[in-house]
């Protein structure tokens, strides 16, 4: 079972470049999330989606955009990359009615130089 798949696993960007982190899940989960993890700071919610066509901002949305055209895919777009966006990004999903258990991808490590 693939679960939640993120690509790429590693990427180095120059300041001002743009890129898209891809996230796909094969569990037919309605809810999907993007988090970033900075050292000593835990996981901060960037954006989330409760279904195809519906997205909403989390705690730290500035500098990012998302779309949800299908149940399976939830890409995260970085526009005009900045050093402050250097982080490890995790995509996660969960079914509609559960206790909150998230299924995470393996993460994408992004460095902006």
């Amino acid at each position: 079972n693939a679960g939640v798949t993120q690509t790429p696993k590693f990427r180095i960007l120059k300041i001002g470049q743009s890129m898209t982190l891809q996230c796909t899940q094969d569990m037919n989960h309605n809810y999907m999330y993007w988090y970033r993890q900075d050292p000593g700071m835990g996981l901060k919610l960037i954006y989330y989606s409760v279904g195809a066509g519906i997205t909403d901002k989390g705690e730290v949305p500035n500098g990012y955009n998302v779309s949800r055209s299908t149940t399976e895919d939830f890409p995260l777009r970085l526009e005009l990359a900045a050093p402050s966006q250097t982080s490890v990004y995790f995509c996660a999903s969960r079914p509609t009615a559960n206790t909150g258990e998230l299924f995470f991808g393996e993460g994408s490590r992004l460095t902006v130089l």
Partner: protein
Amino acid sequence: DQQVKQNSPSLSVQEGRISILNCDYTNSMFDYFLWYKKYPAEGPTFLISISSIKDKNEDGRFTVFLNKSAKHLSLHIVPSQPGDSAVYFCAAKSDYKLSFGAGTTVTVRA
């Protein structure tokens, strides 16, 4: 404004002894609390959860205790094993979203 706090960044415990991880929260609207475990270069994985209407939930070596009046929860691991060495995140759910603590790194010594 951090709604979920883990004030101990690290914990070292001897193999076979108990590990106790603590977590405090501020939002009374959280309806579920969860613990996740994370190894290096991997995504977090779900460990155990507890409903806000319960005060204890047990799953094998892992037990979570919830004290609503103190807005405090803890995770007990008994006995601790070398494979338990990881980062543990406390999380709390409100509506669609989960808020996470900063994590506690547990090291189990032989």
